[in-house]
């Protein structure tokens, strides 16, 4: 979010609309040599559409091409078998993570990443999550969903070195989330203690190419405002490593917003519409290309791509986009 800003000179107000057109000149001047490095399909027009600055080699995303696979691709869904035990082990670890190329952030993580691992169960499963606190502060895991009071991660504080096992039947089906609920809450969430929690319905969803996207920000200088934004962690990651999907099959995104400090975040897809199921707990959906989420809000997106090529997705808060919350789908046949 912007900090206090010098007031625009009064005189400029009159001419601002005229000069504001100037950035468009960049469109015409976009460096064609950058476009050449990235395939020759229909989507390469993207490079001359003003996004040229943040695609290709110049994108300051850290890490390698498959670093985020375990967060992007969820575990496979299992068929409905009430009473089956699903076990996960989560450990809180203090860890320096690279949030944009060259910038480290002293994060608090579940299992070493922010967001933490994707937890998945089928409705009726008995979920058993063993939590160990290997960090330096008291932590918990607070799951969204329906569960007993002592499994809520609010009163059972786990001190450093301690552990706790959360056990409850997974319900209701939908896209949920989990996060630390120690105080100060804002700090524990902003530091990176959160993740996606998927509960599959008793009747399986149709087959799809499934993806998980957890939206978050990183306040690297501790001033209570995010410096960088990202999907499943680092800024600009999917701009540097586009997500490859097939046109022939539905793309299903389990989407959750865990951005601290900012009131809202959003998801916008270029060149396509999608069905958005709020919380994923029912059948009603909205057919749109933009959804808006407050912190903790989540849902399921289903896309049937009509075209192949590169399609951008990003927050429709332009500021978040340019601070890292953007990426590309590469749709192929």
């Amino acid at each position, binding site marked *: 979010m912007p900090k206090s800003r010098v007031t625009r000179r009064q005189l400029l107000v009159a001419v601002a609309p005229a000069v504001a057109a100037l950035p468009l000149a960049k469109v015409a001047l976009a460096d064609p040599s950058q476009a050449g490095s990235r395939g020759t399909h229909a989507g390469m027009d993207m490079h001359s559409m003003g996004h040229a600055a*943040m695609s290709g080699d110049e994108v300051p995303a850290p890490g390698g091409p498959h670093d985020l696979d375990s967060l992007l691709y969820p575990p496979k869904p299992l068929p409905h078998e009430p009473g089956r035990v699903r076990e996960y082990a989560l450990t809180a670890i203090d860890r320096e993570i690279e949030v944009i190329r060259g910038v480290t952030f002293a994060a608090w993580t579940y299992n070493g990443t922010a967001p933490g691992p994707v937890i998945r169960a089928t409705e009726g499963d008995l979920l058993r999550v063993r939590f160990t606190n290997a960090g330096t502060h008291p932590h918990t895991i607070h799951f969204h969903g329906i569960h007993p009071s002592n499994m809520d991660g609010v009163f059972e504080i786990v001190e450093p070195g301690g552990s706790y096992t959360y056990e409850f039947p997974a319900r209701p089906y939908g896209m949920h989330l989990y996060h630390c609920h120690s105080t100060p809450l804002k700090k524990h969430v902003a530091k990176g203690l959160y993740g996606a929690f998927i509960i599959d319905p008793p009747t399986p969803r149709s087959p799809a190419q499934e993806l998980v996207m957890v939206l978050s920000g990183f306040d*690297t200088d501790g001033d209570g405002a995010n410096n960088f934004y990202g999907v499943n962690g680092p800024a600009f990651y999917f701009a540097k490593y586009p997500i490859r999907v097939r046109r022939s099959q539905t793309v299903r995104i389990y989407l959750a917003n865990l951005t601290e400090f900012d009131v809202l975040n959003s998801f916008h897809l270029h060149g396509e519409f999608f069905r958005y199921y709020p919380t994923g707990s029912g059948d009603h959906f909205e057919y749109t290309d933009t959804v808006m989420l407050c912190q903790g809000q989540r849902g399921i997106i289903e896309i049937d791509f009509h075209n192949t090529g590169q399609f951008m997705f990003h927050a429709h808060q332009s500021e978040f986009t*340019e601070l890292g919350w953007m990426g590309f789908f590469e749709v192929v046949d």
Partner: protein
Amino acid sequence: MEAGSVADRGPSRPGVWRLWALVPILLLVGVVALFASTGASVLDLVGQAPPPADRFDVRRVEFRPGEIRIRVTNPQREKLTIATVTVDDAVFPFRVDGPSTLDRLRSSTVIVPFQWVDGDPYRVGITSSRGIETTTDIAAAVESRGTSARGFFGYALIGLLVGVIPVALGLAWLPSLRRADPRWLAAFMALTAGLLSFLALDALAEALALQAALPSGLQGPGLILLGVAASYLLLTFVAGRFSAAGQRERGAPLEGVGLATLIAIGIGLHNLGEGLAIGSSIALGELALGTFLIVGFMVHNVTEGLGIATPIASGARISLVRLGGLALLAGAPAIFGAWIGGFLSSDLLGVLFFALAVGAALQVVVEVARYVARRAPGGLRSGHVVGGYLAGIAVMYATGLLVG
């Protein structure tokens, strides 16, 4: 190394004291080496060092066609790495002219390809590898011209307009002053002291304001003291030489051309700082340099010429060439200042120049006061002198409103 032997041998050989003077220094080196090898554990007993502040010192932001250039310095002891650059809260690719990781007080220039909008406000941010962002606000983007013959000439012209010409015009009061009553001449001398007092305070305020923005490692206040003391004592020395050259008695106050020269030097040093301030403000787009401002500086500085002319009025005739020389001595530094400010824009030099101006102006005030005390009818307490001094301050204040 026994104390007894020092006492025994010390006085016997002249010059040996210099050798013995090295003893504390050698001991210090030894103790420092000992501490450096174990020092960290000593500090652990009393606390823990805080993490580095990681703030960049942004020296200069320039807008060139299609790019923004940001000159940054590392003001802290720890190394500082330029990791990410934002313009108006958006990440942009950049390159660094120089090292990305800066040692203490080292600088690099960050170059961001960027289609900026003329006249728009911008905020540039440099984020360190530890995630700390330093932001700088630019009130309005204005294209910075690089070093060119055109720019060189332009700054020279500005220096000429605000420095040399007003002083030369002020010197044209000389024929009038020659015919003035001695009481009135004393009043104008006091007026000179008044305006120099004003300039001294003005320069001190500028120096203090500029030093506040310097990295603390550069010790702005100490630099100001150094500048003030150096210029004051240097001018005292020069005044002494002028007196000696004039074959006068020791300690006699300067007068005539000698005093005028001293005043010209004091004013010249002030104009050096003023030229630097104007030059850097133009280069950084902080100054709307209009006709009005130039006229303001001319009116403001014309009184400086009067100050130089007054001591000459009571003395022998002076050639036009020497008069022109005095005008250059007082006014031309504005040209050099404008060049330095326009092309280098160094806050450090600005602090130093203004500090030099403070010391010089104060020294000249003292010299003028001694002159007036001895020569003026009625001395320092006459109505003309008191009124003239106050009028000098008032005139500077009033004309200063034009450039404020």
